[in-house]
């Protein structure tokens, strides 16, 4: 680990002043950043500890909630409002990491965590994220865990978060305080696809600090769920995950939200499948066709082509189960 100066901020605007300096990084729970610093992949000069800021979950407008960026992952998953109104969010968090890590990790840090691509972590390998222009050893390497959607020849890494997949399905907004003031960014616009600049992972600028995640109430949230497929049954990153919410009127789909994890450089909102399903019948055939349409542009690498069929089936099956639960509920 390279030496750094440690600062604590008493409020967000003080943090932004410290965080806007060159070489500064915000520190939440440290579960990803400390690991990367130990490997000297991250080498901040200043760590601005923001873990004691924005630690509350408060009621938003009309059944919505506002989750402070410093709230621990466990606290979000245990919150009764989240469990009852946004079950997909609680499930996604509980599907990720371990009990210990969820107690440390913050909501803001979960959003800002970096890929677990093994070539990104291995400084003997080539990686365009670590060293722009160096090349990518994952494209032709061991890429079982890598992207099938939205990737580029420069980078095939995936975003590792489960929580962000649920936030993408729910259409959450991220509140950011920066040197220019406070603004709100849809979660889908926070992370970027890799293109030619995979080292630029989000739209956040120097000094920008995530202060909250804002969730509005919507019709699909109460009947939503998160499914995750991984190489072992617990404490592993997703091969493919699905966050889904469904609203039915009889047999007709009035609203549907779908996002997929483990498949792209960002949480992947399945707009194509949603458009295919909305207003149509809640049938096995319709679910399968919509999933196939979403995955049509997917491209497999040497080791991960299985994810295309896996994602298709997982989407179809998750929607099927949600529609059955909906019938039971009536």
């Amino acid at each position, binding site marked *: *680990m390279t*030496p*750094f*100066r*440690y600062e604590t901020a008493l409020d967000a605007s003080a943090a932004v002043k410290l965080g806007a300096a060159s070489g500064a990084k915000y*520190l939440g*729970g*440290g*579960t990803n950043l*400390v*690991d990367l*610093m*130990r490997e000297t992949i991250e080498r901040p000069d200043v*760590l601005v*500890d923001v*873990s004691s800021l924005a630690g509350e979950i408060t009621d938003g407008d009309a059944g919505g909630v506002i989750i402070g960026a410093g709230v621990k992952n*466990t606290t979000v*998953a*245990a919150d*009764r409002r989240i*469990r*009852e109104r946004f*079950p997909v969010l*609680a*499930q996604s968090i*509980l*599907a990720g*990491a*371990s*009990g*210990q*890590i969820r*107690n*440390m990790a913050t909501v803001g840090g979960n959003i800002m965590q970096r890929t677990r691509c093994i070539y990104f972590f291995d400084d003997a390998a080539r990686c365009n994220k670590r060293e722009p222009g160096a090349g990518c050893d994952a494209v032709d390497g061991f890429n079982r865990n890598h992207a099938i959607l939205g990737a580029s020849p420069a980078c095939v890494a995936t975003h590792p978060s489960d929580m962000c997949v649920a936030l993408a399905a729910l259409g959450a907004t991220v509140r950011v305080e920066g040197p220019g003031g406070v603004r709100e960014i849809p979660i889908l616009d926070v992370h970027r696809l890799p293109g030619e600049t995979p080292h630029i992972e989000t739209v956040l600028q120097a000094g920008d600090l995530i202060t909250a995640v804002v969730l509005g109430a919507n019709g699909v949230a109460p009947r939503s769920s998160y499914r995750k497929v991984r190489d072992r*049954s*617990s*404490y592993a990153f997703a091969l493919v995950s699905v966050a889904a919410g469904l609203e039915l009127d009889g047999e007709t789909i009035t609203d549907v939200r779908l996002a997929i994890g483990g498949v792209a450089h960002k949480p992947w909102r399945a707009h194509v499948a949603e458009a295919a399903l909305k207003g149509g019948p809640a049938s096995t055939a319709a679910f399968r066709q919509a999933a196939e349409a979403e995955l049509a542009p997917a491209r497999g690498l040497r080791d991960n082509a299985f994810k295309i069929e896996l994602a298709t089936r997982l989407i179809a099956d998750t929607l099927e189960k949600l529609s059955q639960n909906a019938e039971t509920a009536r």
Partner: protein
Amino acid sequence: MRFNINGQRLEVEVDTRTSLLDLLRDHLQLAGTKKGCNQGACGACTVLVDGQRINSCLALAVQYQDRKVVTIDGVGAPGSLHPLQEAFVEHDGFQCGYCTPGQICSALGMADELARGVPSYVTEDLTAETMALTHDEVRERMSGNLCRCGAYNGIVEAIRETFADAQAEGPKREAA
């Protein structure tokens, strides 16, 4: 920097790069807490901070000043073992013992989470007020602690005997 470890207040000067784990082992000679992977994957370094389990290897010590840290050294001692430690002996919940301090601290934190009604990924009813400590619940909630000897069956039994029985006796209990 000022720390509160196992009920003792201490003042130690360490580099900002020092992890909580290295503070305990190398600076305070509290070697009960073990270093396994040193990257948050194995759970051997688990300690309790304000009653909550964390990986001390991923924690910068500077971030944990004046927090109440409890390590395995503060849980029990020879001759006065914690009931969970007795149960690990009873059920062969270890072979080499290297993961055991982390398993014990993690299980204490886990029991407290259960008592507070924190659900897990395998909890059927996400809105339930309380959850039974079934075999599957223990396996899921303890998945952050690896045992290379494969003593999992004994570990699960020791935890269930200690906390599931207590759970059956009353709805609220102190975990540690």
